[in-house]
């Protein structure tokens, strides 16, 4: 991913900054500037997510694309944030530890490196809540 394409989303990737529709209370991550439910009557404001959630489903990736090969096997999950939206993210735990319903919280981690001397991308992974 190009530097600009990544940098553009840094506030969202680093800080879990999303939006909220103040008309209906629905939260959006990644952020949306238009509420699909309220449409033009939706009033959108920035919202910083608490970063806690629950594992909805998961897999353990054994065959990855080049950028992630060194990480295998790694846990990938769909996490439902406590505010409602779901996101796809890695969970930093042993492959046999992950299960549906597991409580997790966000952690700031290195996601990938572009090539040998490339840019290091950071973002959100999740860790189990003790």
């Amino acid at each position, binding site marked *: 991913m190009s530097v600009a394409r990544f940098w553009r989303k840094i506030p969202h990737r680093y800080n879990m900054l999303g939006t909220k529709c103040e008309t209906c209370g629905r939260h959006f991550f990644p952020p949306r500037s238009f509420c699909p439910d309220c449409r033009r009557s939706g009033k959108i404001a920035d919202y910083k997510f608490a970063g806690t959630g629950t594992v909805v*489903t998961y*897999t353990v990736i054994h*065959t990855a*694309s080049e950028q992630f090969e060194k990480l295998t096997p790694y846990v990938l999950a769909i996490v439902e944030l406590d505010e409602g939206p779901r996101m*796809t993210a890695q969970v930093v735990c042993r492959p046999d530890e992950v299960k549906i319903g597991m409580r997790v919280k966000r952690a700031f981690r290195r*996601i990938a490196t572009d090539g040998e001397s490339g840019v290091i991308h950071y973002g959100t992974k999740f860790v189990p809540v003790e």
Partner: protein
Amino acid sequence: MRDVAVIGAGCTTFGEKWSSSFRDLFVEAGALALEDAHLSGEKIDAMYVGNMSAGRFIEQEHIGALIADYAGLATHHMPSTRVEAACASGGLAFRQAVIAVASGMEDIVVAAGVEKMTDVEPGASTDTLTGAADREWEGFVGATFPGLYAMIATDYMHRYPLTREQLALVAVKNHYNGARNPIAQFQQEITIDTVLKSPMVAEPLRLFDCSPITDGAAAVIVAPLERAREFTDTPIKVLASAQASDTITLHDRRDISTLDASVVAGKWALKMARCTHKDIDLVEVHDCFSIAEICAIEDLGFCKKGEAGKFTADGETALNGTIPVNTSGGLKACGHPVGATGIKQVFEVVQQLRGEAGKRQIDGAKIGMTHNVGGTGATVAVHIFGRA
């Protein structure tokens, strides 16, 4: 709206075709389809070509014009349009051809699909296919395409009674059918053990749960039904064409284990064809992974949610079952050249309805369905065909 019929169909063999270029593939498929319809190229009014990612796979864009040119039709100046919807590119190209003829705008239209996937390393093709999902919010965090379907499988197996062995039986059945299809990439039968002992890709999916990397092309020709017998004695009528969309990410879906776009497109298609799923004699579904076939036969209404594992284990989807699924071998055994798959599904149903499917022929097949999925279900095309 005019009735539309398929008057010709052709398909290359599928596989790792080291000696064939992208251009060789579509020229071969197109020539086979024209020959089948007893047509010469200059009679074609328009062409739609399904292709997912020639830009990434062979660094070539502008596929519509390239194909018309190499089909020898550059000086004919016929309109030629590329259609892209990831793995559903072929199904959507076919639908565009049907719409063009049904509208009365064009008469003789080619719908083709082509993908040349083996000119890049496997790591690069894995990454390219990840572009069928959401690059920024799925691919970027380490999701692979098999990984996303694996998360469907985990969710499904947590909620419904599907055993690992039943899931393997999808691949076993599709290899059995592939062994009876001369164009299939894999011609050998396998056992449950073959699947369970193959390398893990993304838990719980193993290598033999996954469709392969494939080169191939397919082409069909559609025309107004009223003119079809000028070209063939066995026209196949297009009874329905439906297409539906859903969220690009898997995590935003209403239900992880249901492809709502399949449910909706399936319902629309049955309504348009004025039939029920009980009238369907065979169906080609989009089994890019074994779990995808499980979801598809439920989402299309052939069995209830949660029962597809038992349905498969009971042999209901086999060649001699109540609803034969993927008689071609499906994406798993016939192969999955992404942009060509949707057209190959039409090619298979046409062969079956004409009674030309050889060792995998479904006796007396009158109505067939195709189901083509883009990404993890963000685009679905469903078509229904009948003997004219």
